[in-house]
C-alpha cells in the first residue's frame, strides 16, 4: 500500500516536489504521533465565580430510582437525598483509578474544608451489581469514609437513573479481560445536586483535593 502510493506519486509529471512532500509526510506518519501518553484530565480551572466544578447547561434533577442500602433497605434516590446538597457518583469497586481518586479526594477535602456529612451527602451508586455485593461496597467506601452512602440496584434501574441524567450508554461493555465479571463503562464525573435535587455542577476526572476544598464550602453555603 505504502509502496504503491510512493510509486504513483513519482510518476506524476513534474511531481518531484510533491513526491518529496509525500515522502516526508509518510515518514512523519509512519513514525506516529506522540499520543500514547495523552491524559484526559489536567485539573480544573477556576471559573469567573471561583467555582472549580463545571456548571451544567441543561436542567437535570435527581433521578427517580429505587435502590438499596447495604442493609438491603430500599432507598428512593429522589426523596432520600433532598434537604441537603448531594454529591453523586456512579462507579464500581473493581474500578482501578477514576473511582478511588474521586472518592479519596472528596474524603480528604471534607475534613480539611470542615464540611460534615450532615451538611452534605456523598453517594456512591454501584454500576456493577454482579460483583459489587453490599458488603463489598461497604468495605470499599470504608477506605475513604464510612459516612459515604453506598447504594446498589438492578442494572436496569441503574441504567435508567443514568439515562435520566443524560449519562446513558452501555454500562456493560463486554467481559472483563481480568477474568470474572463485566467490563464496565461509567461516567467519569461527580455530579453535584442542591438541596432541592437540582443537578447544578459536575467535577470531571482531574478534580484535585484543592478543587474540592475550594468548592465544598460553597456547596454548603449556596446549595443548602
Amino acid at each position: 500500500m505504502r509502496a504503491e502510493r510512493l510509486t504513483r506519486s513519482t510518476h506524476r509529471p513534474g511531481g518531484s516536489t510533491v513526491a518529496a512532500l509525500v515522502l516526508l509526510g509518510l515518514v512523519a506518519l509512519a513514525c506516529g504521533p506522540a499520543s500514547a501518553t495523552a491524559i484526559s484530565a489536567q485539573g480544573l480551572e477556576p471559573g469567573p465565580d471561583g467555582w472549580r466544578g463545571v456548571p451544567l447547561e441543561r436542567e437535570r434533577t435527581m433521578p427517580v430510582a429505587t435502590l438499596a442500602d447495604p442493609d438491603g433497605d430500599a432507598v428512593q434516590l429522589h426523596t432520600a437525598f433532598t434537604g441537603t446538597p448531594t454529591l453523586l457518583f456512579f462507579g464500581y469497586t473493581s474500578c482501578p483509578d477514576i473511582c478511588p481518586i474521586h472518592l479519596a479526594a472528596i474524603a480528604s477535602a471534607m475534613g480539611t474544608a470542615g464540611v460534615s456529612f450532615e451538611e452534605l451527602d456523598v453517594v456512591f451508586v454501584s454500576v456493577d451489581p454482579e460483583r459489587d455485593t453490599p458488603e463489598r461496597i461497604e468495605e470499599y467506601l470504608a477506605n475513604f469514609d464510612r459516612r459515604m452512602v453506598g447504594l446498589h440496584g438492578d442494572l436496569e434501574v441503574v441504567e435508567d437513573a443514568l439515562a435520566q441524567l443524560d449519562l446513558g450508554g452501555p454500562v456493560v461493555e463486554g467481559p472483563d479481560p481480568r477474568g470474572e465479571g463485566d467490563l464496565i463503562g461509567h461516567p467519569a464525573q461527580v455530579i453535584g445536586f442542591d438541596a432541592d435535587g437540582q443537578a447544578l455542577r459536575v467535577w470531571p476526572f482531574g478534580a484535585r483535593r484543592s478543587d474540592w476544598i475550594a468548592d465544598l464550602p460553597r456547596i454548603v453555603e449556596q446549595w443548602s
Partner: protein
Amino acid sequence: MVALLRKALGIVVGTGALARRGPRLAVAVGLGLLALVASACGTSGSPALEVSAAQAAVPLAGSSQLVLSITNAGDGDDALVGVETDAALAIELHETRIAEDRATMVSLDEVPLPAGQTVRFRPGGLHLMMIAPSDEVALGTTFEVTLRFDRSDPVTTTAEVRELLDLAEDSFDDPDA
C-alpha cells in the same frame, strides 16, 4: 534525522527521472524508499530504553497501580510486553479511556515504545495494574518490578508505595510530562 530527510529528498528528486526510464528501475527505487521509510521509523534501528523509578499506590479493593515512565532514546522501536513482581499475583497492562465524560478500562497485550518517545504509565491513562498485591505493598515500603520488552533486555526497577491520590495529583500537575 535532518541528514536522513535530506537523503530522502535526494532520492525522491532522482526518482522522477528514473521512473520514466523503465518500470524495473522504478520498482527498485520504490523498494529502496520503502526500506528508507522503514528505517526512519525505527524497525531496523536499536531501541535504548531508560526506565524511571516506579511508584505504586497503596492497594485498594485487591488492586494497585504502578506509575513509571519509559523513554526510548534509541533509533529503534520496542514494546513493553510484560511486568513481573513477587509483590503481586500479576501485573496487567491497562488503559483507562475517557471519552464524552465516560470512562472505560481496556486491557492491552503490549504497549508500543516508539523510538524517541517517552511513554508514561499513570492514573487516568495507560497504567500498570497490580492484581492482588501482597502485604509488603504498604505505605512507605519498596519492592522490585521487572519489565520485559519485545526487543530489549529486561529491566528491574524499584517501586515506592505512596497514596493513590498523591500519585494522581502529581500526574494532574504534570500534564505534559
